């Protein structure tokens, strides 16, 4: 029986190591698109299909559902005001769950093989963007994310011409964050905890470098996205740290971290999240909480109309509204002669031009050759009575 125990233990160990190795895979997924990718013409008809990739379930569902609500908000207003109609083909990416990336790839493959789908909104996370590039690019599909902010995903050339985003990159976010920490809060000692994902480590690296350049003492550590016990790492954070920066994607994890900080008598230390934590779960931790977030015009009439329907103040998904608007616009233009190919839709995505006056972001939506928005500011928010209020 001893042998059985040893064998079972080793099998269990192998399972853990295999899971860890699979979870930490960060290949850039460099798959070249076939020469004729997406050149097949389809009849546009009255109803146009758009793939919608988002975390409908899973640890990031709270922000994913918000994105879905905003995307549907655009779809409904479009369907009311146009003769043609939009139909979403939904794919749940389960961002942050143990098999999240695999689910995203499965979803991308399903959209690729659905000939009615002409463009895709999403996916949400930068890691998912990397993982799904092969499948989406191979099928010739253009995809527009309303939340993937990793700087490198538009710069590494892997998905140029296929991938676009309606949020600024982390290089812009890191500048806003470091400027606020040093300029407004005037802090000298900051501790950064990343969550080991591409989005998180990329943003953490940038903020760390910029803070150090400004003479701030910066400590750095990381946690696994699957982790729930943060007490050991909180003990490690020096008491001299004035702010803990959490560039994470999962609001429930940010909430747990903040609660465990309080439990260990560290409730007065400032916490700053990134766009992934822009959620009531995080803001309700208290007035020591800050966050950085995408540009959104809060006085736009559509924001008020959305809040009326969904009874909330969450703006995280607003760029997904714009992403849907971008894809729908590109399909409409490509479909002018009654037929369209995915390649034609991609060409139209590049030509997107939504003026500031009609843009929900409050700035014009145009893409540069890498797929990034030409104008890309980030806002800083402070939690006041449990709600994020813009302060910079």
């Amino acid at each position, binding site marked *: 029986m001893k042998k059985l125990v040893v064998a079972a233990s080793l099998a269990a160990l192998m399972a853990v190591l295999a899971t860890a190795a699979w979870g930490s895979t960060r290949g850039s997924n460099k798959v070249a698109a076939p020469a004729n990718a997406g050149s097949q013409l389809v009849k546009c008809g009255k109803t146009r299909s758009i793939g919608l990739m988002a975390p409908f379930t899973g640890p990031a569902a709270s922000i994913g559902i918000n994105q879905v609500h905003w995307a549907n908000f655009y779809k409904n207003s479009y369907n009311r005001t146009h003769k043609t109609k939009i139909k979403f083909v939904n794919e749940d990416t389960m961002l942050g769950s143990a098999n999240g990336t695999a689910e995203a790839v499965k979803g991308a493959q399903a959209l690729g093989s659905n000939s009615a789908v002409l463009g895709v909104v999403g996916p949400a996370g930068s890691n998912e963007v990397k993982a799904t590039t092969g499948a989406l690019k191979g099928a010739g599909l253009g995809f527009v994310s309303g939340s993937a902010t990793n700087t490198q995903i538009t710069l590494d050339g892997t998905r140029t011409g296929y991938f676009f985003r309606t949020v600024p990159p982390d290089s812009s976010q890191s500048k806003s964050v470091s400027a606020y920490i040093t300029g407004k809060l005037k802090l000298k000692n900051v501790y950064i905890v990343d969550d080991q994902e591409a989005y998180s480590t990329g943003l953490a690296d940038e903020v760390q470098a910029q803070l150090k350049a400004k003479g701030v003492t910066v400590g750095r550590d990381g946690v696994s996205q699957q982790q729930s016990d943060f007490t050991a790492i909180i*003990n490690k954070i020096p008491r001299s740290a004035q702010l803990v920066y959490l560039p994470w994607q999962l609001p429930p994890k940010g909430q*747990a971290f903040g609660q465990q900080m309080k439990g260990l008598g560290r409730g007065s230390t400032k916490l700053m999240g990134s766009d992934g934590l822009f959620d009531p779960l995080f803001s309700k931790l208290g007035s020591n909480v800050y966050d950085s977030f995408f540009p959104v015009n809060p006085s736009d009439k559509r924001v008020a109309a959305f809040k009326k329907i969904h009874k909330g103040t969450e703006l995280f998904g607003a760029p997904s509204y714009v992403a849907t608007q971008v894809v729908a616009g590109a399909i409409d233009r490509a479909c002018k002669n009654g037929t369209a190919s995915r390649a034609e839709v991609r060409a139209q995505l590049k030509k997107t031009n939504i003026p500031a006056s009609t843009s929900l972001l409050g700035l014009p939506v145009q893409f540069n050759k890498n797929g990034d928005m030409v104008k890309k500011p980030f806002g800083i928010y402070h939690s006041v009575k449990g709600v994020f209020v813009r302060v910079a």
Partner: protein
Amino acid sequence: MNWSLFFGELVSGLTLGSIYALIALGYTMVYGILKLLNFAHGDVYMVGAFVGFFVLQWLGGALSPAVTGWLVVAIMFVVGMLACGLLGVGIERFAYRPLRNAPRIAPLISALGVSIFLQNSALLLWGPQFRSYDTFDLVGVKSYHIGNNFFISNLQILTIAVSIGLTIVLALVVSRTRTGKAMRATSFDRDAAEMMGISIDRVISFTFFLGSALAAAGGIMFGLVFGQIFSLMGFTAGLKGFTAAVVGGIGSIPGAVLGGFLIGLTEAFATGYLPGGSVYANLYVFALLIGMFLIRPSGLLGSPVIQKV
């Protein structure tokens, strides 16, 4: 020496170790009686955490509980432990008992099957999203400072105390009651115990009940201390509980508790002191398992099995 960090990691390790110890007790008791590695045990722990969560919701939620916060916690423990005790009995009755005389690999495979069944049922029924116990709102978390270096919260004290308390109760049940005596007899020689009139089925069912109830207590404590529960939380926790049982000496109740604390402390101190510890704490924990196999295969308090040839 940074004493603040040292004491902080010590308390974190003991808190986490208390939870692993409760899981390890179930593994070790079942192994002691049946020589079976019940790999579904981690998932029973997860179900316990969810039962606790639903009891909390049923009692009005953390923000507006129908009774005082600590009474809600007590009810969560009682209902969760009872429900998971019965679940454990059911698992034994339907998944393991029919295979009792089959080759040893059969119940092991069955255990893995039950584990996957429970995990996927939880995913289907409750979804993969995190659920929060909102302990701050429920009982109000307080931290106590002793000097400048020692901090401990009321929930950490509760977790360690409940774990030690339940272990003492278990030890008393096993050493002082007739059922406990029957458990020890069954563990020592099942056939002889049966010939002495002990109902083996009843003893095994009771063992599963106790082990599963302890796992449920661990799951609820996890939710209270760390705030969150999710459908797949049982997998890693189960592996760590199993590791604790093996490190302590599988089949030994004090060994399971010792192993649990050792694993918890390894994880906490690895996070605090070792390079990359916060990310690779699990690597250090399972390295401890391998090291234990190489140095003392029967575990810290286990006795080597003498085989007649």
